[in-house]
Every structure is written in C-alpha cells, then in structure tokens.
C-alpha cells in the first residue's frame, strides 16, 4: 500500500470517528436544549395566562394544548413537569407531549393551568444530523483526494525519479547517481544518505577490484616459480614412473591455475575498463584467423565448418578483446561439438550468429554466462570463456544471447545496440 493511501486511510478513519463523536454530542446537547426551551416557553405562557386571569378575563381551554381549570378551595402554588402520551384527535395519533401543570392562586382563587406541547422527538432530527455529517464527511473525502492528487505529483515526483535512478544504478558503470533536490526535508535527508551510501559502495567496489587485480598479479610470480621448479625436476632422465606421474599431475594443476589466473585477471581488467581503445576491425578476418588457430581441433573431430560471412563487415571495437571474444565463442562451438558435427558462422553488419551441434545441454541455459558455470564432467576448460565473452560484449554495448534446442546450440551477438562511448568513459 502506498504511503499516501495509508496516511489518508488513517486520516479518514479518525475523521469518521471524530465526526461520529461530534454527532452524538450534537444530539445530546440539542435534545437537552430543545427540552429546556420547550419547558421555559410553556412556563412563560403560564405566566401570561395568569396575567389574563388577574384581569378577570375568561381564559378558554384548548385541549389538549391548553387547559385552565378552577380548583375548589385554596391550594399551594406548584409546578409539575412531565411527559405524557395522549391521543391527538387532529393528528389522529398518539403523540408524546410535554406537559407543564401549574397551580396558581389569582385573586384568591386557585387555578390549575396545564399546557402541553408536542415534543420534537429525537428520531425526527437524528436523521438530519446524520445526513449533515455524512455530507461533511463526503466533502472532506473529496477535498482530500483533490489535494492529494495535486500535491502528490509535486511532492512525490522527485522521490519516484530518484527511485528510478537508484534502480538503474550499477556497480559496473562506476557512476554515482544524480538525485533530485526536493523541498521536503525527509527526502533531502534520504538523498543525502543514499548518495553517501553510493559513494561508499563505489569506493569499496573500486578497492575490491584493485585488490582482485593486485592479488591476481601477485599470484603470478609464485606460480611461475612452481612451474619453473617442476620444469627443472622433470628434466631428470632418471625419474621413476611414480615420480614422473607426480610431477605430471602437479604440472597439470599449475597449468590450470595459471589459466584460471589469466582468465580472472582478464575479467577484472575488462571490468576495470582497461580496454578503452576502439578501432575498426574486419570481423571476417579475425574469424578466419581464429578458425586457422582451431584448424587442428576442427580436423581432429571431423567437424564441418560453414561460413556465411559478409567480408566487408567492420566492427568498432577493442582488437584484443574482439579476438578473445571470437576465440571463446568458436572454441566453445568446436570444443562442445560432437564428432563429425557442424559449426555454422553467419556474419552480417548487425549480427554474428554461431550455431553448432553438440550434446543436449544439461544445465540451465540462463546460467551459461555465469562464472564457472560448466558441465561438471568437462575437462580442460576453466569455465570462464562465456563470462568473458559476455563482459566483452557488455563493455562494447553489444548483446549476447545463448539458446539451445536439443542438439543445437546457438549464440547471437548483436552489434550497434547502443553507443559504446557511454560505457567506455
């Protein structure tokens, strides 16, 4: 639920309570006032009748609202006020009357003057009070909605804009987010906190990246020493089979470590935007070169490579990265192929499409670009090829997409998606 709806809901709930309270109070007070006023008026009227009687005028009765009766003997003056139900022949109904009955002594004679007045019954005006309050409530509601519509846009717009900016924030682009100023203190506080947080996250991320890069660099010399030492040890012609096996296994592990290290270092360097150069590259020439590189592997497996390439296609890109991208994609297409399988490369000025035969994918196709996502039984590869491919595409502003259907695997790279200069900055 939106904050605005939440607060107005509470607001309305309390308003309704207050209005109901006001209604009850109004009703009680009104009832009291009406009763008092009626009685008082009748007492005044009794005084008037008294005056008339004093002037020896005849006062006729008018039942049931007025009755004057002469009492025998002398009586003490008194006033009795009560409510009574009487039949009113004019209204043809039983009505509730307020009755004020006073005993008065005028000119030595006692009279009982009784006045009655139909009481305004509470339910007669209860409805009116309720209606008036309901209308007031409805008007309040309407006003609230209108005010909120008006102010919501003005007050909340910067907030939603900032929210969008925060959603778009990505560590990879290394850019702080521009937050809009607002005249609401709370939003400004929030902006200050978020900006501070972003700065801190960026700084931490930069530090982490520098650390990863330095760590990868620092690892190289010890790995080189291990490799050199194993190389030395392997030179001994008198090695036993066991010793040779042990050295061979250690060499294979060091080789893997070294490949892993250079792949991670490459990823870090791509992420640190260290490949900023953009030059025109003839894509078909690079693909030819890479295929030549892979010729032995293609021949070994009896793979049929088919090329549909527009040889005039020129891509703006970083040459080293573009070559690694082509190598990684073709390496996958050949390495994950079946014997006597096929690789089809199609190149147009907007798209590079590589299809290859292979075993059905066992994992999740969405996770293909994740680091270290690879078929578990696979040997040789360090499992970073497609992540590297994906990062290379990202820094160039290209899209890369992997799809698979049974025995066919397909990778599409789309060039010219967006202005790459916005990323390489």
């Amino acid at each position, binding site marked *: 639920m939106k904050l605005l709806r939440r607060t107005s809901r509470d607001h309305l709930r309390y308003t309704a309570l207050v209005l109901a309270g006001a209604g009850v109070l109004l009703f009680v007070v009104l009832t009291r006032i009406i009763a008092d006023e009626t009685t008082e008026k009748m007492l005044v009227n009794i005084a008037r009748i008294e005056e008339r009687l004093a002037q020896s005028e005849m006062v006729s009765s008018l039942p049931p609202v007025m009755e004057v009766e002469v009492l025998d003997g002398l009586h003490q003056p008194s006033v009795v006020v009560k409510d009574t139900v009487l039949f009113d022949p004019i209204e043809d109904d039983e009505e509730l009357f307020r009755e004020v009955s006073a005993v008065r002594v005028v000119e030595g004679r006692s009279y009982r003057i009784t006045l009655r007045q139909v009481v305004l019954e509470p339910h007669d005006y209860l409805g009116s009070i309720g209606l008036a309050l309901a209308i007031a409530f409805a008007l309040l509601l309407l006003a609230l909605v209108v005010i909120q519509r008006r102010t919501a846009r003005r007050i909340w717009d910067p907030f939603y804009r900032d929210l969008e900016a925060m959603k778009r924030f990505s560590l990879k682009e290394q850019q702080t987010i521009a937050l809009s100023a607002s005249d609401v203190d709370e939003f400004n506080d929030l902006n200050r906190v978020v900006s501070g947080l972003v700065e801190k996250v960026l700084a931490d991320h930069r530090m982490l990246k520098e650390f990863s890069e330095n760590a990868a*660099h*620092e690892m*190289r*010399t010890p*790995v*080189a*020493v*291990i*490799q*050199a*030492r194993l*190389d*030395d040890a*392997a*030179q001994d012609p008198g*090695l036993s*089979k066991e010793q*040779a*096996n042990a*050295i*061979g296994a250690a*060499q*294979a592990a*060091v*080789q893997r470590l*070294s*490949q892993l290290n*250079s*792949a991670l*270092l490459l990823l870090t*360097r791509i992420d640190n935007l*260290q*490949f900023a150069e953009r030059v025109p590259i003839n894509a078909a020439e690079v693909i030819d070169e890479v295929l*030549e*590189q892979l*010729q*032995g*592997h293609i*021949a*070994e*497996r009896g793979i049929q490579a088919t090329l549909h390439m527009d040889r005039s296609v020129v891509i703006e890109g970083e040459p*080293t990265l573009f070559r*690694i991208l082509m*190598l*990684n994609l073709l*390496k996958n297409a*050949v*390495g994950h192929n079946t014997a006597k399988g096929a690789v089809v490369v199609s190149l147009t000025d907007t798209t590079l499409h590589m299809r290859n035969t292979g075993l059905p994918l066992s994992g999740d196709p969405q996770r293909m670009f994740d680091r270290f996502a690879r078929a578990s039984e*696979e*040997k*040789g*590869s*360090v499992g970073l*090829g497609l992540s590297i491919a994906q990062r290379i595409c990202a820094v160039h502003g290209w899209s890369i997409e992997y799809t698979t259907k049974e025995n066919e695997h397909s990778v599409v790279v789309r060039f010219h998606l967006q202005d790459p200069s916005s990323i390489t900055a």
Partner: protein
Amino acid sequence: MKILIVEDEPELLGAMQRSLEGIGLVCSTASTFKEGEDKLAGYDYDVVVLDVTLPGGSGIALLEQVKKDAPDRGVLIVSAKGSIDDKLRGLDLGADDYITKPFHMAELNARVQAVLRRRSFGGRSVVQLDELAIDTQARTVKVHEQVLNLTRKEYDLLLFMLVNKDRLLTRDAMAEHIWGDHMDLADNTDVLYSHIKNLRAKIRAAGGVDRLRTVYGLGYTFHSVVQDHTPDGKP
C-alpha cells in the same frame, strides 16, 4: 651469445639462467635495477631479459636506457602484469618481444632464440641439426636438402623442439607455444598428438631421423643424438 637476465625473484632468476644455459647461452644475472644498470654499462650483451617490476626502479626505464645506449641490443620484456599498457609501451620503446609470467622455460628459450636470430643475423639464420635445417626467415624446413611441406603449426612445433633439443617438453608448453593463451580445450592433447604424428611421418618420409621420444607421463624430448631408431607410440 651473451644474455643478461634482470629479475628480482631469485628462484625464477635461477630457473631462467639454468634454462638458457641449457640451450648453450652464456648468462649474467642482475636482481635489482641498480645491478642491471651497472652490468649493462660494463658489458656487452646480445639479449637482455628484463622484468618490468624491479626493486629500485621500473624495467621500462631500464629498457629506455638500453635502447638509448645500444639500439640494436635485443630485449625481451618479462611481466607479471600482462597488461596491455605495459606490453604496448615495451614494444613501442623497442623491446623485441614480451612474455607474461608464468611461462614455460621452453617458451623463454624459444623467445630468446628468436630475438637472437633476428638481431644477430639480420634475420637470416638457419638452425641446423645434422640432416635437418630450418630457415627461420623463409620458414622452410629441409631434410637432406629436401624441402618438407609442413603446416604452420608443424613448423612452429619443430622449431620449438629444435631450439629446446635434449630438454623435456611438456604437452602444456607445446600446446601454449602453438596456440597461445586462452586455448584451454579438453582435446588439446589429442590434437597435439596428431600434429606430432604428422610431423614425424613427414620427417621420416624424407629420410630424416626420428629424434622425438615420449617421456612417460610428462611429454616429449627431441634428442640431438639418437642411438636406436625405433619410433615409439602414443603415450
């Protein structure tokens, strides 16, 4: 042929020295910027193997100095960074080649030899071993004066083995030499074996001696002298 190795990691320096001396080169070593500077001033070297990160100064600065004092001296840059900037700067400043740690010693041998050939003989150089002769400029191989028809990879392999003769070559070193970085494929061994098989067949067909021997569990050795001519099979 005299080589100066400037490298601050003593273990690596020792291994590099042993490796280069193993292929018949005379090596001096230096482990700091200052030491490197002094040796360069005092002696004449054909090739300088230079680590980029040195205590007391950058290898790049030393490279600038080498190129100023003796422009035709060969320089091979060794870097743990492998960053493009270092590489381009190194090559721009006149380094002949660039190698990234960690590297196989056989690769170091091959690179240093290549720099030597380019520098010492104006590129015209023939590497000879009995009936086998490789013209490194024309990229041709002759056995008993008969030109072999080799693929590029077979040629690269043969030259690599010849430079590193009598030295154990691991399959990884050979694979990295012919395919370079980022070629971590599961069937590298099979493809390498195919290349080697074809190469042997071509040499034998021309009447050459099959000098290649499998070393159990480790790789191959290309022998300069062979007693028996029985070829061995797949490891």
